């Protein structure tokens, strides 16, 4: 009851004309920035940060939050239309979104993405409203051992994202983990594999990996395919409504995705990319339609979008209540609050209840605005596919260049993107998939950091991973998943003895 009362008050705050307008400006800007490859919410928030100095704290926060989750909506658009993730977290949406677009069902995919994003956003908001104090506590129950265990679970799930050979998927995760070690070792300060290049000391930026492997790699493949007309499918421009059966099949994934996303969002650092990957991997195991995954399944679009949008909302919990930013964009939110003398921390929910509940309520309004904004735009986005590819692809290359350059205003990042782009193309030739690599790359540094910290704190005793209750439970679940995966792989092999084995597992 108390929550409803607080939420009602928040709704009144969020519905003030000024806040409503800033919310709209935020989500509008976020959507468009999110579409541009490489330019994420970070650039958009830095852009409006000076503007927020003149606003009430609530208005500023509502607008910044709008940009943040608006960018998640927008990020999926480029993924579906061009197989180039607008934001790293929408990389997973490429896997089924792009095949749908190639089938001429880009409109349906965009619609599914918008609906799933909306569902995820609303679910994330509800979870945040009801469970904010509990989720803040959850993050406090997660020490290094627990983080390590949850990351391990995420990695095992991630290796299932691959649609090709399973062993290649696991190999890509391992390669991602390995490449994540490039840069200064944060535990000792020693440089690893940087070849003396100062720009490599902080490792390779996630956006560079995503843009290189997915964006540039995909472009090289598609130039010739388009010149030959292989991509000229009949596109139904008018019809973007999913069929009744598709509507039905999206409901469960949206709920599952939101739940998984909310959990990962509340753990600072794991973020939207991991949320969408794990949700996709789990859905691929449990969906009745799993055989179609990777070939344009509508559930494959719905689940990562539901997950990353709900994670986007719950990511505000550790940011506001613990002051721990899960991402660079969240660090900006903390910065903006500090300009007003509001220090994120345990007192924020109490001392600035108006601000907190106004923000929560603005998620509801913002998500409705985004839906209203995005549904009519689908027709416009789909028409982009009508532009001949010979005009499109040089433009996309330029957008990738500018996006990557804007990360640190350093051309070294453009050179790195070139390298990753070439590697991405070669990987496609060798039938390796970039998505598991990306997830390994995101989680690797975190996994190593927590592992070493846990070992340091336990004075070298590895049994802590099993004896601490939360991490012990997670490790057991991970082990069961692995056993199940082996069991089903063996059973599959037994039932199909005639087919030569393609995997060494």
């Amino acid at each position, binding site marked *: 009851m108390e929550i409803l009362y607080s939420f009602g008050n928040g709704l009144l705050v969020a519905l003030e004309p000024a806040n409503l307008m800033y919310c709209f400006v935020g989500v509008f800007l976020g959507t468009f*920035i999110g579409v541009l490859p490489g330019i994420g919410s970070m650039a958009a928030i830095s852009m409006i940060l000076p503007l927020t100095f003149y606003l009430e704290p609530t208005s500023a926060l509502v607008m910044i939050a709008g940009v943040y989750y608006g960018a998640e909506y927008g990020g999926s658009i480029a993924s579906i239309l061009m197989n180039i993730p607008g934001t790293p977290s929408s990389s997973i949406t490429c896997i089924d979104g792009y095949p749908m677009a190639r089938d001429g069902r880009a409109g349906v995919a965009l619609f599914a993405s918008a609906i799933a994003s909306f569902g995820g956003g609303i679910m994330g908001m509800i979870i945040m409203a009801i469970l904010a104090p509990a989720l803040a506590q959850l993050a406090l129950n997660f020490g290094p051992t627990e983080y390590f265990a949850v990351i391990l679970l995420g990695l095992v799930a991630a290796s299932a994202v691959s649609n090709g*050979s399973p*062993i*290649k998927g*696991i*190999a890509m995760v*391992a*390669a991602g*983990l*390995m490449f994540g*070690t490039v840069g200064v*070792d944060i*535990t*000792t300060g*020693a440089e*690893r*594999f940087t070849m003396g290049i100062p720009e490599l000391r902080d490792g390779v930026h996630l956006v560079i990996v995503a843009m290189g492997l997915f964006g*540039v790699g995909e472009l*090289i*493949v598609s*130039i*010739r395919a388009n*010149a030959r007309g292989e991509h000229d499918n009949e596109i139904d421009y008018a019809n973007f409504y999913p069929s009744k059966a598709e509507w039905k099949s999206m409901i469960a994934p949206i709920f599952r995705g939101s739940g998984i996303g909310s959990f990962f969002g509340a753990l600072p650092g794991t973020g939207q990319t991991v949320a969408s990957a794990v949700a996709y991997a789990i859905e691929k195991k449990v969906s009745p339609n799993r055989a179609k995954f990777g070939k344009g399944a509508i559930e494959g679009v719905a689940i990562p979008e539901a997950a990353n949008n709900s994670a986007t909302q719950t990511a505000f919990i550790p940011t506001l209540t613990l002051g721990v930013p899960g991402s660079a964009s969240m660090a900006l939110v903390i910065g903006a609050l500090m300009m007003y003398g509001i220090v994120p921390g345990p007192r924020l929910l109490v001392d600035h209840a108006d601000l907190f509940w106004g923000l929560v309520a603005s998620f509801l309004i913002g998500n409705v605005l985004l839906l209203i904004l995005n549904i009519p735009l689908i027709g416009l986005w789909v028409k982009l596919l009508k532009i*001949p590819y*010979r*005009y499109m*692809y*040089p*433009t996309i*290359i*330029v*957008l*990738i*260049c*500018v996006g990557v*350059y*804007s990360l640190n*205003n350093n051309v070294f990042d*453009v*050179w790195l993107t*070139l390298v990753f*782009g*070439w590697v991405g*193309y*070669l*990987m496609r*030739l*060798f*039938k390796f998939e970039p998505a598991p690599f990306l997830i390994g790359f995101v989680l*690797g540094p975190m996994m190593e950091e927590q*592992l*070493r910290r846990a*070992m*340091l704190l336990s004075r*070298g005793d*590895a049994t802590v991973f099993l004896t601490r209750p939360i991490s012990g439970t997670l490790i057991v679940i991970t082990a069961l998943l692995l056993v199940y995966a082996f069991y089903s792989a063996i059973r599959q092999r037994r039932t199909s003895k005639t087919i030569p084995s*393609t*995997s*060494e*597992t």
Partner: protein
Amino acid sequence: MRDFLLRLQHSAKEKHAPHAYLGALGGAGFLALSIIFIVGGFELGVGAPRRLGTGAFPVITGFILALLSMGVIAADLQDTSDAEKPDWISFVAIGGALAVFALTVGRIGLVPGIFLTTITASLPDPSLKFPGKMALAAVVALACWGLFIGLIGLPFDAFMGFN
């Protein structure tokens, strides 16, 4: 590296070259990389369980990847499906476009840099004639100027070294 590329090109020319060649190459590439990380990791020091060294994680992940790479090679050698045909022209042109951007943006500014980048990127598509490429480049350069510097306000110089 050159040999390697030539071999790739050669394998691509054969009609219906099986994937086995390429697959084995990919696995071998990852195997080589994992060995670099294992050796480098040992050089950095693996430390003790209590205080894991700088090289510990690269060594662990390197070993896992090395094992998996061998599995990948074995699996790919049995793969008889058709290989993807490489498109080295686009490969070079797109790489070239990124290189042109990297070389020009800090020297002559964003707008002329994008103009040259667009032209480089559009080279492998013969369906657009050269005047068309020029026009496209001009439009993209001007639009980016308006969008990134005018609207978004990124701290880039539009033109440099012209005065």
